[in-house]
């Protein structure tokens, strides 16, 4: 029995590391000079350098990361504020309107960004909010709200009716019902949804490139600016991308801690 468990663990780790390899290679490249990053055969052993990170830092990466944080955290908080009650409302006894509303939400995601980006540019321009990080955050919230609602709703649907009814019989108001009874049970789902929404906002590229200039510029267009048509750039962009992924990795670590069995439904009786 123990052997089987150890073998499974070993296989799991092997597959995880294999899957992780390209990311590991990116982290490795971040410490290479441009010449080292483009050698034949690929170098596993080399003299590490911080020149890529230095370049990214000198180019103002801190400011761009700060902008990204503002837009992404802002969007995520706004989404949580709107989607938690919204998804809950859509998870109680369904009526035809529930289906229509759910479909409406997901349909807002059907319009490709490339089609709406120039109209959005014109709207932003006439409102005078080009290069405005708050406006960008609002747009990110709007884009990712449907995903959060659909995801969270499916977790709300899991909550046993009896628990809710018991709380209601105990005299709990809607707010208490939601925050003290239901929410603790669906925390893994909320964490997963929040993380996904944060990641999409953090990595969003198109809108950030066209709707910002300098004050509101976020990390993705900054990363793209390392692409050089006449010169190697793999080391520099690996360094910048590695730095850019740190906040999301931290967010991922925090979120995955919520995905722990033990918050099982049947635990409360």
């Amino acid at each position: 029995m123990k052997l089987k468990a150890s073998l499974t663990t070993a296989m799991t780790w092997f597959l995880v590391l294999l899957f992780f390899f390209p990311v590991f290679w990116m982290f490795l490249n971040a410490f290479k000079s441009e010449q080292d990053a483009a050698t034949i055969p690929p170098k596993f052993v080399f003299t590490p350098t911080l020149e890529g990170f230095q370049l990214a830092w000198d180019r103002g990466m801190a400011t761009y990361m700060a902008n990204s944080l503002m837009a992404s955290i802002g969007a995520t908080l706004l989404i949580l504020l709107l989607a938690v009650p919204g998804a809950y409302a859509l998870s109680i006894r369904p009526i035809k309107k529930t289906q229509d509303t759910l479909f409406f939400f997901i349909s807002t995601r059907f319009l490709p960004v490339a089609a709406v980006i120039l109209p959005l540019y014109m709207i932003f321009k006439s409102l005078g909010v080009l290069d405005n990080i708050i406006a960008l955050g609002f747009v990110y919230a709007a884009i990712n709200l449907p995903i959060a609602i659909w995801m969270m709703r499916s977790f709300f649907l899991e909550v046993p009716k009896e628990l809710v009814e018991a709380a209601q019989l105990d005299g709990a108001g809607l707010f208490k019902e939601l925050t003290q009874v239901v929410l603790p049970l669906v925390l893994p789902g909320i964490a997963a949804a929040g993380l996904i929404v944060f990641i999409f906002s953090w990595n969003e590229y198109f809108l950030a490139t066209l709707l910002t200039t300098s004050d509101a510029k976020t990390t993705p267009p900054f990363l793209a600016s390392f692409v050089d048509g006449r010169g190697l750039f793999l080391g520099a962009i690996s360094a910048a991308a590695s730095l850019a992924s740190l906040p999301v990795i931290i967010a991922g670590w925090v979120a995955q801690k919520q995905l722990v069995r033990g918050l099982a439904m049947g635990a409360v009786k």
Partner: protein
Amino acid sequence: MLKRNRLAAISASVAVSALVLAGCSSSDDTATDAATTDAAAETTEEAATGEDVTITVATVNNGNMKDMESLAPIYEAENPGVSINFQVMEEGDLRSAVTADVASGAGQYDVVTIGAYEVPQWGANGWLTDLTPALAEGDYDVEDILPPVREALSVNGQQYAVPFYGESSILMYNKEVMDAAGITISNNPTWDEVATAAKAVNTDDMAGICLRGKPGWGDLFAPLTTVVQTFGGAWYDMDWNAQVNSPEFIEAVTFYKDLLDEAGQPDPVSYSFNECLTALQNGKVAMWYDASVAASMLEADGSPVQGKMGYAHAPVKETAESGWLWSWNLAVPVSTKNQDAAINFVKWATSKDYQQLVGTELGWSLVPPGARISTYSIPEYQEAAAAYAPITLDVMSSVNPVQPGVNPQPWVGIQYVAIPEFQDVGNQVAQLVADAIAGRGTVEEALNKGQEIAQVAGDAQK
């Protein structure tokens, strides 16, 4: 159901008002362009009297631009109250962002980096400030700018941008490999000569020649257009009839494809400048036809092939020269609110003094190439760039952007057609040709489809 209908009615009225709003804002801009320039002039007068000014420069991640960024503090020290804000973008994004900004009059950028392809079109559109009077002032010496480059940046005698980087195309070959095979490449080789040489040195481990294959008007079609033109073909004739499936065009593309098949690098569709550079430096290819700036990288300290390379003019067939012409240039959009300060910076960054500054502060091999003739007379530069400066000057002075091919053409430009549709047309045809290179369809099929696409754009010019 009723609620939905009500929602629809509200939406419809919002739509109408939104349309009106949107329509108004855009047409207002074109109508009040004149007013904006007057207003801009007023504000720049204020700026000149001492208010702090920030010049926002939209630019590409180009080596010379990176140097300019590092030297900007010197300019800021000499011009108190002015600060330069560099916004670096990827080339494709830069084009879209700057076009959207300039076309809609948003005025977020004071100085823009645009290519030789855009300058004449945007100048003709009235989007760029005419720099001719400003450049004639002082000791700027605008005549020092390489004549072909200047030619490509002017419309009706008015110059709309100044170059800070210029390039043409050359043939580069590993002399050691060639000598070992007993092959000599002349200074003005023909394509047949090059093909023979490439096939002779081609082995499993090292391809004979590296040629771009990445689909794109600026990737694959930069070298391919020069091949087409030296084979006697062209994109359009004088009456704007597309010539994409003419016998010469087909012959040229077939030649290019066959050369790749027989002596070219593997996975050509993924190769552009950087990939060929890496391959050549690592001994995976013996020859390379690409931008002249590559020579300075191959001869840089730390390059594995430093001192081993030979350089020649771009290979020809029926023309005397076939090198392309590209420059990255600084221009000032008319929508800027800081016109005087912007022009001042542009002049500084492309002046003779600036060249000296780069040489003394950063190193003589880093002086921007391909912009000014006098660069090539600076003794320190001649010494530092001895391996590649002469061929660059030679090639850049001998190309003719007015008629690069066998026949006259109704636009100025070598490896591109200076019409707005060309980005799209070039990309589409490049994708078709790339599929043919990959063996999915014949060259004729690809070019026949390309002919239709190009003809639509050609008709729009008539």
